[in-house]
């Protein structure tokens, strides 16, 4: 019954179904991604810029443009300047610690040993748990009275006696003392990003051909020299990506500070995202909130550019 389909003889046979038309299919397949980006990233971004140039509040969200007034006000605010400093401090310090620790963990996980799967599982755990739940766990670790950390310190005799190294008081009040509160936030951020960074580092390390390390060994390089001249340069691109991802996650994170300290004591742990939230949502000043959050944009844009460049470099090597 069927005759061989000649081009043009029957429109159905020559043009095929929708899955045969590559142009249409491509547009169709990419549409969800484009829609998502426009709706979830593009629109809020434009809205944030509009709000930052207006005098909108949660009570009166209509947009009347007032120029750059909000940015000037934010810069003049000492809490904002503290939040700006803290954001950089938390991010850079926590991510530097993460790079070192994740390298050590990844090196350990490269070697075969008994119970390796369990260690891997435990290392990955913080990444799989919701940030808010994990942080609530830490809230208990830092509790002013029942802190297990303080308990261990007391048990070791480092706290709570007249001659103790850390002082005679029974508790350190982690979240109540400015320096310790900052350290607490950094520790939780390290704990949170470490799993991802370890996995990325592990990937980077195991992608170095074994031959190269052996060649360096035969070429007379000491273990230090092998690390400095071979392993670190070869894993640099992928480690940079881990570092930049960590920066994005920490830089934009609100939950850790919100759950642990709510920016306290006296704004000492305030950061851009938390200050945005407190100012813009809780205090209702949408315009100020939008202006504060937009200060994150140049940093994040820069990081994004670096990530893309690094990604291209790893492709080449």
């Amino acid at each position, binding site marked *: 019954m069927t005759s061989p389909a000649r081009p043009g003889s029957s429109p159905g046979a020559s043009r095929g179904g929708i899955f045969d038309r590559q142009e249409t299919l491509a547009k169709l397949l990419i549409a969800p991604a484009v829609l998502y980006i426009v709706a979830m990233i593009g629109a809020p971004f434009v809205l944030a810029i509009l709000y930052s140039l207006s005098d909108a509040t949660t009570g009166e969200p209509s947009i009347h443009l007032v120029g750059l007034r909000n940015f000037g006000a934010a810069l003049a605010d000492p809490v904002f300047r503290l939040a700006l400093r803290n954001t950089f401090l938390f991010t850079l310090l926590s991510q530097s610690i993460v790079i070192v620790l994740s390298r050590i963990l990844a090196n350990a996980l490269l070697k075969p040993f008994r119970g390796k799967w369990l260690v891997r599982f435990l290392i990955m755990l913080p990444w799989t748990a919701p940030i808010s739940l994990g942080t609530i766990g830490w809230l208990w670790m830092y509790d002013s009275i029942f802190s297990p950390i303080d308990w261990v310190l007391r048990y070791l005799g480092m706290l709570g006696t007249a001659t103790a190294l850390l002082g005679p008081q029974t508790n350190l009040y982690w979240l109540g003392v400015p320096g310790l509160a900052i350290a607490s936030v950094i520790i939780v951020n390290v704990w949170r990003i470490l799993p991802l960074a370890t996995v990325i580092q592990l990937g980077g390390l195991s992608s170095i*051909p074994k*031959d*190269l390390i*052996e*060649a*360096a*060994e*035969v*070429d*007379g*390089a*000491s273990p230090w*020299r092998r690390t400095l*001249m*071979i392993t670190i*340069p*070869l894993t640099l691109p992928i480690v940079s990506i881990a570092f930049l991802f960590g920066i994005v996650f920490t830089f934009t994170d609100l939950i850790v500070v919100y759950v642990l300290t709510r920016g306290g004591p006296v704004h000492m742990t305030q950061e851009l995202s938390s200050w945005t939230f407190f100012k813009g949502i809780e205090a209702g000043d949408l315009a100020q909130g939008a202006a504060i959050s937009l200060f994150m944009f140049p940093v994040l844009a820069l990081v994004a550019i670096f990530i893309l460049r690094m990604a291209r470099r790893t492709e*080449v*090597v």
Partner: protein
Amino acid sequence: MGCVEIRGISKLFGNVPAVDQIDLATNEGEFLVLLGPSGCGKTTLLRMIAGIEIPTAGEIAIDGRVVTDLPPRMRNIAMVFQSYALYPHMTVYKNIAFPLRARGVDEGTVRKKVEWAAGMFKIGRLLDRKPRELSGGERQRVALARAMVREPSVFLLDEPLSNLDALLRTSAREELRQFQRRVGVTTIYVTHDQVEAMGLGDRIAVMSQGKVRQVGSPMDIYMYPADTFVATFVGSPPMNLLEQEDVLLGFRPETFMPSDAVEGSEGVITYPFEVTYLEYLGAERLVYGNVGEKSHGRHVVARLPGSLTLPLEAGKTYPFAIARRDLRRFDRKSGLALPGETA
């Protein structure tokens, strides 16, 4: 300088012996080839000499000094890997300089030596390039230059030609051999390619299943194989093995000729050869067929030079002959060569 002695070396991976009680020694300045099929332990043996792999038992000495427990960098050896293992983030110059800098040689000397090594392998114009910008042949030269620049007492090569295309491989083989003669460094070369082994080696150690089956000059290995493994592994096509009572009769395909082409009849055995298949290869003809009446163990190959234009046809039987001096006898059970010629 430059003698490697291996005494009773074994290497177990789990319970599997990769290298099984090997004794082997190089002569000074010699080119020794470890030849064997993949998985025979030749690379493991080389890696133990380099110090990358730690032997389960036995002892390795270089220049009379026991190095079994020393790390690679204290053995004064150089190694070229199958993959070349060039450092991808370094230029050719830095790659070649790496072993020198690792030894703390001053920069002036480094420059002089790198230029010397690069000149020797004609890669002087490539010094500023990265390995990924080089062709396979150039990478191989860089790897050789990096190995030679420190003037090692022993030079180890792990299938360094296997990543080159066939044409390049032949010229690289010739260059490698000439270069080794010139420098005179004791060289241990691992390969599974018998042509490389025959062409390069002063001596060949044929390995199988973790053991050395035979050590000897290429001619010894080819003419007087120690057992049926060596007989059938070396030579292409391999030595014919003909079952005859309780021995295996071995003869090389090129010694099996139409009787008309064999001069005289003294010391010659003639067989009726039933031709089943012919291959014309230009310089030579391969003739496959059966000898004698028995049902198995009688399939043999004859290799006739291209100059012998005698017409042969599949399905017909021709008288073929072998000179007695070309016959080898092997024990049927152990496969070991038996002394003397057959009756």
